[in-house]
C-alpha cells in the first residue's frame, strides 16, 4: 500500500498529526472536520446564465463515483445524498463556457454540499465556478470525464475574508479523455482544496494548474493526488503562488502515484512560490511514488524564492518605478496560468485582484 494515500483516519477525527492534516489549522475549519459545525442542507451552486442545449443542472440523489478517506468529504456524504448535478450530454460540444456560481449565505452555518459534473462521452465543454462572498462550505465535488470527452474545469475562489472552504474536486478520467483544471485561490480565510484525479482507462490525460495569493493571516492549501492506475496516461501539474504579509501561509502538496500497471505513464509536476515579504510561509512538497520503471517520464520541481533584484533593476532602468516594476513581475509570474483562462473579463478581474493583494502587502 502506498504511503501517499495518507488521509486515512480509521474513522477518527483529524488531530493534525496525520500526514494529510499536518499543515492545516484545524481550529480554523469551523468544525467542519470534527462534526461540530452546524451543517445545513443548501444547494447554493446555480447557473449564472441560461444553460445551452445539451446541458442540464438539477438537484437529485447522488451516488458517489469514488470512495475517499477525506474526513470532511465523508461527513458531507453522511449528511446528505442529495446534490447538484451538472450534465453535459454525450457528443455535445458547448462553445461558450458554462458559468456556475455560489451565492453568499453567511457564516453562521456550514453548507455541506455535494456536486457531480458529468461530461458525457465525446462531449466538449468549459465549466467555470465563481465562488464569491462569505460562507462556510464543505464541498464534495466529483467530475466524471467520460471516454473521449474534453472538459476544462475552472474553479475561482474569490471569496471574502471570512470564508472557510474545504473541498475535494475529484475527477475520474476515462479512455482518451482530457481533463484540464485551473484553480485560482485569491480570497478566503481558510481554503483547503484537494484537486485529485483517477485515471481509469488508457490514453487519458490531465492538466492541473493553479494560482494562489495569500496575504496576512490567510491559509490556502492545495493538495493534489494523481493516481496513475492504468497504462499510457499523462498528467501535468503546475501551481504558482505568491505570499505577502505576516502569517500568510500556503501549502502545496503534489502526490503522484504510478502503480505497477501504469506502464507508459508520463507525468511532471511543478510548484513555484514567490515570497514577497518576511513572516510568510510556503510549504511545498512534491511526492512521487513509482511502482514501474516502464514509463515515459516522471519528474517534479519545486521552488520558493523572492523578487529577483535583477528583474526589478532591468525594468526600473527603463524608467518604470518600483511599484509598477513589482506589479509587472508578479503579473508576469502568474500570467502563464491566468492566460490559460480563455476569458478576458475573468483574466482582468483576477489580475487586478492580484494587483490589490500586492498593494495591500506593501513593499
Amino acid at each position, binding site marked *: 500500500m502506498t504511503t501517499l494515500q495518507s488521509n486515512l483516519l480509521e474513522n477518527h477525527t483529524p488531530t493534525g498529526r496525520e500526514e494529510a492534516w499536518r499543515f492545516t489549522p484545524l481550529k480554523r475549519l469551523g468544525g467542519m472536520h470534527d462534526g461540530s459545525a452546524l451543517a445545513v442542507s443548501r444547494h447554493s451552486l446555480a447557473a449564472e446564465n441560461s444553460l445551452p442545449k445539451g446541458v442540464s443542472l438539477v438537484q437529485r440523489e447522488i451516488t458517489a463515483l469514488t470512495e475517499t478517506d477525506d474526513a470532511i468529504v465523508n461527513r458531507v456524504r453522511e449528511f446528505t445524498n442529495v446534490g447538484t448535478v451538472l450534465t453535459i450530454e454525450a457528443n455535445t460540444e458547448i462553445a461558450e463556457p458554462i458559468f456556475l456560481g455560489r451565492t453568499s449565505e453567511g457564516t453562521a452555518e456550514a453548507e455541506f454540499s455535494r456536486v457531480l459534473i458529468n461530461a458525457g462521452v465525446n462531449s466538449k465543454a468549459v465549466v467555470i465556478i465563481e465562488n464569491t462572498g462569505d460562507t462556510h462550505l464543505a464541498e464534495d465535488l466529483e467530475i466524471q470525464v467520460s471516454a473521449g470527452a474534453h472538459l476544462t474545469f475552472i474553479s475561482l475562489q474569490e471569496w471574502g475574508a471570512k470564508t472557510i472552504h474545504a473541498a475535494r474536486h475529484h475527477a475520474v478520467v476515462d479512455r482518451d479523455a482530457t481533463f484540464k483544471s485551473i484553480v485560482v485561490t485569491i480570497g478566503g480565510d481558510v481554503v483547503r482544496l484537494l484537486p485529485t484525479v483517477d485515471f481509469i482507462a488508457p490514453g487519458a490525460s490531465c492538466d492541473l494548474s493553479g494560482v494562489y495569493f495569500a496575504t496576512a493571516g490567510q491559509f490556502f492549501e492545495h493538495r493534489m493526488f494523481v493516481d496513475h492506475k492504468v497504462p499510457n496516461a499523462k498528467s501535468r501539474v503546475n501551481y504558482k503562488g505568491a505570499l505577502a504579509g505576516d502569517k500568510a501561509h500556503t501549502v502545496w502538496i503534489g502526490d503522484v502515484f504510478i502503480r505497477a500497471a501504469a506502464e507508459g505513464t508520463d507525468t511532471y509536476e511543478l510548484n513555484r512560490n514567490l515570497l514577497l515579504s518576511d513572516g510568510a510561509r510556503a510549504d511545498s512538497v512534491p511526492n512521487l511514488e513509482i511502482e514501474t520503471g516502464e514509463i515515459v517520464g516522471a519528474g517534479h520541481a519545486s521552488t520558493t524564492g523572492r523578487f*529577483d*533584484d*535583477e*528583474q526589478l*533593476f*532591468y*525594468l*526600473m*532602468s*527603463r*524608467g*518604470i*518605478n*518600483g511599484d*509598477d*516594476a513589482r506589479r*509587472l*513581475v508578479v*503579473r*508576469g*509570474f*502568474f*500570467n*502563464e496560468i491566468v492566460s490559460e483562462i480563455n476569458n478576458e473579463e475573468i483574466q482582468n478581474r483576477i489580475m487586478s485582484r492580484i494587483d490589490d493583494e500586492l498593494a495591500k502587502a506593501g513593499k
Partner: protein
Amino acid sequence: MSTLEIRGLKVSVETEQGAVEILKGVDLTIKSGETHAIMGPNGSGKSTLAYSIAGHPKYTITDGTVTLDGADVLEMSVDERAKAGLFLAMQYPVEVPGVSVSNFLRTAATALRGEAPKLREWVGEVKAAMESLKMDASFAQRNVNEGFSGGEKKRHEIMQLELLKPKFAILDETDSGLDVDALRIVSEGVVRAKDANNHGILLITHYTRILKYIKPDFVHVFANGRIVEEGGPELADKLEANGYAEYVSA
C-alpha cells in the same frame, strides 16, 4: 546640449572577503552628440562604471560625483535616472517571464514620457523600430528576453534605445556575442538613434570591430579601475595593433 559629468568616481562591491574597490577615481565628461569609447581588458571595471551610473544596487559609491546637466545622478533612484535621460544597454539583458515585449515597451514609454503614447502612433513607432532592426513582428508578443538568442537580446536593447530616446546611452559590450551581420544591424540601429536624437554615447567594448560602424570621437583606455590613456579614434587603431599589455601592470 546636455552634459554627463563623472568626477573622481570610486566604487566598491561587497564580497565575502569584504569591500573591494573596483573604480579608483574615474573622470569623464560626455556631451550630447559625442561618442566616447571605453576600451580595456576584462576585469578592468568598465561594466562597473556602466552599472554604477545606472544605479545597480550591487555597487556602492564611496567617493566622487555623477551629474547630468548639474543634477546629482547618484541621489536618484534607478527609474529616476532613466527619467533624467540615462539609458543602459546591458550586456546580459534580464529575462522577465510572463511580461510581453509589447507590454514592457509601452509601460516604459509611458513612464518616460509621462503619459501613455497614443496607441496608433505607438504601434507605428514599434513596428518601424522592429523592421529597421530586422526583427520579426511576432517578437512583440514574446516574453521579455525569455528564450532570446544573444543577437535578439542585443537587438531588443537597441530597439529600446530607439524608442525611449535618452539623452545619454551607455552601451555595455553591445557587440559581444554578435555575428558579423547582427553586429552591423545593431550598430546601424545605434547610429540611426544617435542621428535622430543626438544623444551622447558611452560605448564599452573589448574590441575595435564595432568602432568600424560606430565612429568614436574619443577613445579612453580603462585599466585597473581608472582611465589610463585618452585620445582620438587613432588610439583604437593602436590598441588593435598592440593590445592592452602595456596598460596592465605585471
